[in-house]
């Protein structure tokens, strides 16, 4: 009898162990997931001339921190591991390798500069089990064609370029469109769809000039544009070079309005240029649902400020938030037995996900990872930013 009781107890213990071990081993087998934590790697330009791109990282991290304050996801808190890529492709490769191999994160959420994300794309393709959510880089080639583990929750450069052309042609009588662009991958990813969109309208760029990163003078480019007598100029430039272009345009009397990409914050640009006349006719592709001072946007502004009280609140601050919310949504739906496969499967099921932050809803399918396909432009009307779908009649 004694023997039988002991045997029964051992059997019970063994059965319990057998029941528990698979659950534990499943959690242990998923890199970056422990019983109480999910490690998410992030990177962006924290330093250097494009460090304004750290704002989307701050916005996304605010979402993750707010989730932790609400108790986490299925009992797990999100632990962020943050690296600086300074928008340098080499540093982005090093940061990604460090996050994946050394820090053993569950997934990576990062990349504001397209050049940096394009540089790590081969590395991500070699590790198809590691989910990657793009932070703010917009190059269409990041998500087209689809790489199964790369998710792109912002308007791509193709969407932006087509929207810029469409907006430019709403200016009454506008037929002569000129372009000033960087010649890098990011520039080309706007330039080609913009030229295609012009061609679809039966038009060609009347002048296309290049201003490279780090140049201190845009005289020759601006004079070529002026000679072409454009009705509208499309500027595919990062903030430092756009500043130089806008100042030189004012100096040399280029009267045409400038339409530019979502890599620029209108508030930041007005401050940088510090010449109101130079930004009076500046229209920036606007990736958000509303202006930052609107009542509908208050909850996002308050959330950002709560976790980043000393940092500026600008358009870019909110560009990483939808991606972070999509990550949170997929983590919740993947359930407590989290694996990377389940997580990516849930991301691929997101349809019309619209928390009210970006210009349109987010949809991912296994065949489509460029999630947002709509946007308007923003401009300064006096001291107040205004959103517009067409060239404003008041101009």
């Amino acid at each position, binding site marked *: 009898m004694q023997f039988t009781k002991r045997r029964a107890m051992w059997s019970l213990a063994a059965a319990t162990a057998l029941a528990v071990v698979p659950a534990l081993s499943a959690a242990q087998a998923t890199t970056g997931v422990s019983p109480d934590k999910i490690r998410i790697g992030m990177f962006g330009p*924290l330093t250097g001339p494009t460090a304004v791109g750290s704002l989307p990282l701050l916005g996304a991290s605010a979402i993750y921190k707010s989730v932790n304050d609400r108790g986490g996801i299925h009992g797990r808190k999100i632990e962020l591991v943050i690296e600086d890529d300074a928008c340098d492709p080499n540093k982005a490769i090093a940061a990604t390798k460090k996050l994946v191999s050394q820090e053993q994160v569950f997934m990576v959420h990062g990349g504001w500069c397209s050049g940096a994300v394009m540089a790590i794309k081969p590395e991500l393709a070699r590790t198809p089990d590691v989910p990657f959510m793009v932070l703010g880089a917009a190059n269409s080639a990041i998500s087209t064609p689809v790489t199964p583990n790369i998710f792109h929750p912002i308007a791509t450069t193709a969407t932006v370029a087509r929207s810029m052309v469409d907006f430019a042609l709403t200016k009454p009588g506008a037929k002569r469109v000129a372009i000033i662009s960087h010649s890098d991958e990011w520039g080309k990813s706007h330039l080609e769809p913009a030229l295609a969109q012009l061609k679809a309208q039966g038009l060609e760029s009347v002048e296309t000039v290049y201003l*490279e990163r780090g140049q*201190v003078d845009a*005289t*020759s480019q601006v004079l070529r544009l002026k000679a072409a007598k454009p009705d509208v100029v499309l500027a595919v430039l990062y903030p430092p070079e756009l500043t130089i272009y806008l100042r030189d345009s004012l*100096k040399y009397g280029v009267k045409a309005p400038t339409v530019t990409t979502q890599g620029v914050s209108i508030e930041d640009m007005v401050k940088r240029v510090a010449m109101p006349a130079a930004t009076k006719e500046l229209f920036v592709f606007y990736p958000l649902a509303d202006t930052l001072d609107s009542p509908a946007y208050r909850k996002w502004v308050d959330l950002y400020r709560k976790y980043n009280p000393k940092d500026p609140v600008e358009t870019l601050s909110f560009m990483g938030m939808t991606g972070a919310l999509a990550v949170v949504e997929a983590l919740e739906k993947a359930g407590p037995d989290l694996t990377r496969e389940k997580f990516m499967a849930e991301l691929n099921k997101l349809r019309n996900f619209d928390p009210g932050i970006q210009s349109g809803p987010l949809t991912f399918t296994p065949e489509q990872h460029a999630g947002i396909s709509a946007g308007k432009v923003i401009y300064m009307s006096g001291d107040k930013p205004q959103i517009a779908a067409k060239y404003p009649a008041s101009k």
Partner: protein
Amino acid sequence: MLVQLLVSGIAVGSVYALVALGMTILYRSTTVVNFCHGEFFMLGAFGVVVAQQLLGWSYGVSIVFALVLLLAVGVLTERVLIRPLRNAPFVTLAMMTVALSYLLKGVSRFFYGREVVPLPPLLAGEPIELGGAVLFAQDALIVGFTAVVVAGFFVFFQRTQLGKVIQAASQAPRGASLVGINVPLLRNAMWGVGAVMGAAAGILIAPNTLVYPDMGGHMLIRAFAAMCLGGFGSFPGAVLGGVTLGVLENLVGGFVSSALVEITAYLVIVAVLVLRPQGILGEGRSVRA
């Protein structure tokens, strides 16, 4: 358009010339190629920003502060980092300046990593019409300042006793020491002057380009190209090379392709090293087989 490209090219080229002059001073007096000169350029502009924003000083006082600050930085760099290596191989000295360059850039990134700070023009006013081209007051100031500095250097080095002593000491330091000239003191002073020249260029161009920690890197390449083109170690060569490069960049951008502007400096370096290694005004050197 041609005249405008020339006028604007001379203005930008004058900044290249000032940076190249600062590097030439150091090269002539210490034979060190200073890879952190771009950071002296950047620190000059940041000196003005710091004095204005943190200390609330006026523009004029801030400029004086920045120049004095860079004089001190240059002098201290020589005394603390370069002089202990005076007998080290050339490559060691060069590596020290490379390390200092990254250090200074890193410090400024630490404090101003995300910021790109605008500075108002030093000289506001109506643009000047020049034969169909427009010269802005700020650009006129850059050209005028460069002309005054070049003239000052010419007079100093060609007409004054001290200028001649410095040149002699740089060409024959041991001989200069034997006749009682304090060569280390002269080198120390030249580091200070070189840093001030870099700072002055940074302050002059900052209202056009904005101020940010990485602003010195591209300028350093252009200064090298200017020195190569004009003749490495030649004062008039540095000025001629800088102005020529500025004009060349604009003409290439205006009449050939704007995509080539960025690589003009590199093309100049390659072309000069292949076709005329001593540059336009440099002296040919015989090389032992």
